[in-house]
């Protein structure tokens, strides 16, 4: 079992404070969801945990199995067991999807014991099947010219091939139709198990019908303001974020709220 703990995390970008003390603790075997209105810092949290250089941590810690990882560069965090399925994955022309994924797997293995091409292709084939991806996707250049839905599937494909300890899924449901949503959820659900934990960031409850979380966190104004079970997500869907905010007596302006 592994643990991921975020302690009093403060993060700013371009000098603007976005996260103002986030606390969160999870174990492998658990699925956590973070919900919250737009502009509340959900993506900032995921990028800060992963280590995007533009996000500056001004206070707090992120502990993986009790060790602070904030000093580690992004690739070391990844090899330590973190994975971020990104909202806007970069396109890399000239590097094929398969070549890249194999490279990522081999980066985690001893140099003299890489995964054989044959074993790799077998696994890749099987995993792509789960995600209803056509074979040619393996030979296409990484994300280049992929549709929104193809990019999301490709993120989940990488997740399933790399098998991290903890995966953060940043709005993996945005821009997906219902069929694609089911496929992506099938992939994540297949990963569920004692050695895997996931932090799912989403606006909408819909995704959580397919990937049922153990814990739901609600984030507003750069903090986690409430925790609960899956029922909390359903309640938010019915009442909206403004209702919860007023109940908690928070003085936060919601970005999308009409003046």
């Amino acid at each position, binding site marked *: 079992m592994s643990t991921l703990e975020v302690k009093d995390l403060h993060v700013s970008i371009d000098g603007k404070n976005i996260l103002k003390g986030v606390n969160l603790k999870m174990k492998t075997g658990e699925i956590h969801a973070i919900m919250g209105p737009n502009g509340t810092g959900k993506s900032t949290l995921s990028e800060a945990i992963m280590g995007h250089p533009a996000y500056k941590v001004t206070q707090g810690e992120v502990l993986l199995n009790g060790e602070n990882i904030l000093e580690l560069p992004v690739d070391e965090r*990844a090899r330590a067991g973190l994975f971020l399925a990104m909202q806007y994955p970069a396109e890399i022309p*000239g590097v094929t999807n398969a070549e890249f994924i194999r490279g990522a797997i081999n*980066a985690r293995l001893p140099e003299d014991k890489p995964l054989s091409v044959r074993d790799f292709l077998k696994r890749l084939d099987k995993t792509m099947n789960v995600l209803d991806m056509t074979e040619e996707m393996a030979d296409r250049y990484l994300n280049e010219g992929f549709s929104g839905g193809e990019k999301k599937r490709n993120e989940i494909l990488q997740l399933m091939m790399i098998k991290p300890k903890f995966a953060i899924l940043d709005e993996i449901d945005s821009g997906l139709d219902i069929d694609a949503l089911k496929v992506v959820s099938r992939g994540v659900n297949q990963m569920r198990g004692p050695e895997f934990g996931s932090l799912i960031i989403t606006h909408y409850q819909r995704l959580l019908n397919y990937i049922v979380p153990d814990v739901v966190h609600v984030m507003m104004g750069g903090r986690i303001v409430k925790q609960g079970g899956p029922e909390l997500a359903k309640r938010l869907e019915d009442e909206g974020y403004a209702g919860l905010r007023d109940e908690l007596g928070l003085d936060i302006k919601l970005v999308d709220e009409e003046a």
Partner: protein
Amino acid sequence: MTVDLKKYPTIAAYAEKTAEPAWFTELRTKSLEKAVSLALPSFEKIRYQRWPIQLKQPLGEKNSQKNLIEKIDVEQTDNMVVQLGQETLELKISDEMREKGVIVCDWQTALQEHSDLVQKYFMQKAVKTDEDLLTAQHVAYLTSGLFIYVPKNVVLKKALTSYFVQDATVENDYVHHVILVVGENSEFSYLENLKTVGEQATTANIIVEVIAQENSHIKFASVDRLGAKTTAYLNRRGYLEKNAKIDWSMGMMNDGNIVGDFDSDLVGDGSHSEVKIVAISTGRQIQGIDTRVTNIGKHTIGHILQHGVILSRSSLVFNGIGHIIKGAKGSDAQQESRVLMLSNKAKGDANPILLIDDNDVTAGHAASIGRVNQEQLYYLMSRGLPKKIAERLVIIGFLGPVLAAIPSKLIREQLKTTIERKLIDGQKDE
């Protein structure tokens, strides 16, 4: 003989020893006399004039230690030539090639056995002996090379591969000449590998002339990896007759300072030159690449695509020159030069130069100098790839459009391997 050889005892001795034809020796002495009044060629933004690029050593036969070749990866193919310094270690061509009348021989053999053919083409059509100081010195001090002659109506599928290994274990100038003549309606593929053994400071002066006769098609590929202490002048020039085509694919993976002058003269109507170049500069080296296509005949096509990457404190200059001569109606000159910088201390330049003297033509250019996309790097690293590997992938991606446009898959793969190796070496200096 019109020139008094007594004035040039070294040349006379060399000529006697190698038994080269009198016309050639005469050309040497004439060039040497002419050199006094000639200047170094000038290339936009490439300041190489102070480099030790001029040839100064007396003409002489030099032997190399044969076992040095063991340090070089030589891939065995049906048609191949291996030269080390001035000597030819291996030369074999298929029965098919021989039966079809193809001549492949080293420089001394060419002068002795095919003197008339050499005289007809040697610096007559593509490069001229008295063009500048470097071409004149080239003739005076030339000691090695290769002559390839493909008669007309010969179509060969299998390529000829050459390995020219400069011996820099001793301080010898390397002066090398290649002539490739491909006759009417013939098709020929050629792959040239330039390499260095040894680490002495040396000067290399290499001229490659490619004569594409009417309706011929030549695929010319090269992987150049001269050593860190070799200062080189490398001139490759195509002379294209009516409806001839040359596909050039060049990988400039040298480790030292080099001026590359790559030109195509589209003389015949309907001739076509496609020039693809990838270059990587590392350490403190300077690579200046001047690529010119001149449209002379009507309806000629000249395309230049060059992408380069610069690391550490190195420099890379790409000049792209598209010159359309008056009367070259219906011609097309296009070019694209792009440079990717991986370091703040590196220097890059991409200069598009279009000289157009006729109205009824199409021409275009694109040039850029940019940095590595940080989002791409972050994305790759977020999957656990170390920074240097991630950088290499982004670079391969950047060079991708040029690599993808290279006709031969084999050359593409070979170039990719050389690029990878050059990058790994170059990143050690970061």
